[in-house]
């Protein structure tokens, strides 16, 4: 057959990968297509993932699949068109791991400030390991370093690196790990793009610094590491501080602690002194006040005593006076005398009344005898002047026409003198 070494270019489609590990597909372009088969041995060696729509260049031999009577190409080499296979694999893996969140910033751990033990995963050959040890010890002369030696290129490298990450985690004695190697071609650095390495770094509980190749080389290990250092030496600088700096910082802090406390104590002492002085002054004032209060109290006590004494004297005097004027004996005396006097009074009174009544009776009798009324009753009348009310005894006392009043036994008469007659006897 003349078709044992055919190069073909086209788009992958109808891709199928059953459990056997063989991969079946169709390779096509705008106008034609041919079935393709990639047997397991070839498929396993592929560094990138086959996918429908992928533009590839493949090499193989054309055979006939007899059950269907169809031509097919048995692929023994295949690579993506345009980019290299490595590049595509890198992009594909990067995409997948990124989707899983392995490169997210919030997964990144902080490096310890002052690690006492540093783990290094790298090759024992090459300058990188010596560089790192030199830099680490220059910065921090008292540092324990544990090197986990690995191959950093070739088929076994990725597995060894991943194992070493796990081994250092299990050892539990290192505070931070540097994973890296010196510069090389992108194929040389390839191990650091492999999934096993990326996943081991992601799973590490110890913070990891990646340092692969030179500044311009970026691997997936760099993406997943907690810190990416551009070179192994830079990684060494990143993981440990300069011991002298730490010591001087510590010394500074210690000094500042003491100074701050001294200052504070001095301050407090001054405040205390001040307070004490004020207290003393205050106490003195208090004593003064107390003295003044005492004086006032004494004065007041004295005044009260005097007042009380005066009052007592007055009271006694008045009491004495009162005693001397006690009306009780008088009253008692009166109580005895008054009834006597009363009875005497009554006796005398009755006697008097009796006598008076008798005298009055006699008088009444005499009066009755003398009363003009009795004379009047015998038919006499009394004439008196109406104007002067003088009793008229003589006719000459009146004049003609004068009005006179005549008193009778019963009633009175108002009379006018008609004529004055001379007394026949006169």
């Amino acid at each position, binding site marked *: 057959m003349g078709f044992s070494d055919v190069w073909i270019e086209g788009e992958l489609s109808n891709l199928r990968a059953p459990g056997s590990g063989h991969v079946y597909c169709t390779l096509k372009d705008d106008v034609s297509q041919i079935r393709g088969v990639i047997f397991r041995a070839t498929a396993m060696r592929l560094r990138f993932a086959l996918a429908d729509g992928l533009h590839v260049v493949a090499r193989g031999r054309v055979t006939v699949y007899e059950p269907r009577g169809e031509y097919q190409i048995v692929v023994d080499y295949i690579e993506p068109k345009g980019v290299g296979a490595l590049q595509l694999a890198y992009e594909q893996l990067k995409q997948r791991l990124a989707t899983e969140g392995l490169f997210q910033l919030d997964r990144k751990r902080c490096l*310890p400030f002052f690690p006492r033990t540093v783990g290094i995963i790298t090759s024992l050959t090459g300058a990188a390991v010596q560089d790192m040890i030199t830099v680490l010890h220059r910065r921090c002369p008292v540092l324990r370093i544990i090197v986990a030696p690995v191959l950093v290129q070739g088929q076994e490298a990725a597995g060894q*690196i991943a194992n070493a990450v796990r081994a250092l985690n299990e050892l539990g004695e290192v505070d931070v790990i540097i994973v890296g190697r010196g510069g090389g071609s992108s194929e040389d650095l390839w191990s650091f793009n492999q999934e096993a390495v990326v996943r081991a770094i992601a799973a590490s509980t110890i913070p990891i610094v990646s340092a692969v190749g030179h500044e311009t080389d970026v691997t997936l290990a760099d993406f997943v590491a907690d810190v990416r250092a551009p070179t192994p030496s830079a990684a060494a600088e990143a993981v440990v501080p300069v011991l002298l700096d730490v010591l001087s910082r*510590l010394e500074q*802090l210690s000094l500042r602690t003491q100074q701050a406390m001294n200052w*504070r104590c001095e301050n407090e002492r001054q405040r205390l002194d001040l307070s004490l002085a004020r207290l003393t002054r205050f106490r003195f004032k208090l004593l003064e006040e107390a003295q003044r209060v005492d004086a006032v109290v004494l004065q007041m006590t004295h005044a009260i005593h005097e007042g009380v004494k005066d009052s007592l004297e007055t009271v006694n005097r008045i009491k004495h006076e009162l005693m001397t004027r006690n009306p009780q004996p008088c009253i008692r005396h009166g109580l005895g005398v008054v009834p006597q006097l009363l009875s005497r009074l009554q006796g005398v009174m009755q006697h008097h009344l009796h006598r008076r009544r008798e005298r009055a009776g006699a008088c009444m009798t005499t009066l009755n005898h003398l009363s003009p009324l009795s004379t009047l009753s015998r038919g006499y009348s009394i004439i008196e002047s109406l104007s002067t009310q003088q009793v008229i005894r003589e006719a000459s006392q009146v004049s003609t026409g004068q009005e006179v009043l005549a008193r009778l036994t019963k009633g009175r008469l108002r009379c006018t003198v008609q004529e004055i007659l001379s007394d026949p006897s006169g």
Partner: protein
Amino acid sequence: MAAVKFEQAMARLEAIVGELEKGDLPLDESLKIFEEGIRLSKNCLRVLEEAERKVEVLVQDTNGKRELRAFTTDEEPGSSSSF
């Protein structure tokens, strides 16, 4: 891990110095953190003094048994790259 503790101690020490220098805390509190600060700085210093300079190699034999061995510059390449 010791490194974390050291870092925390340094951070705490720094916070204490800040507090003391501000001078806002009551005296007894200040005294308390002052003592803590002195203790921390002594501890940190001891950590630094006790740290040892040593380079070791973690090797794994064919049975998967791991051990730490002193590192020498004339380390045989390949002899211990057993991961």
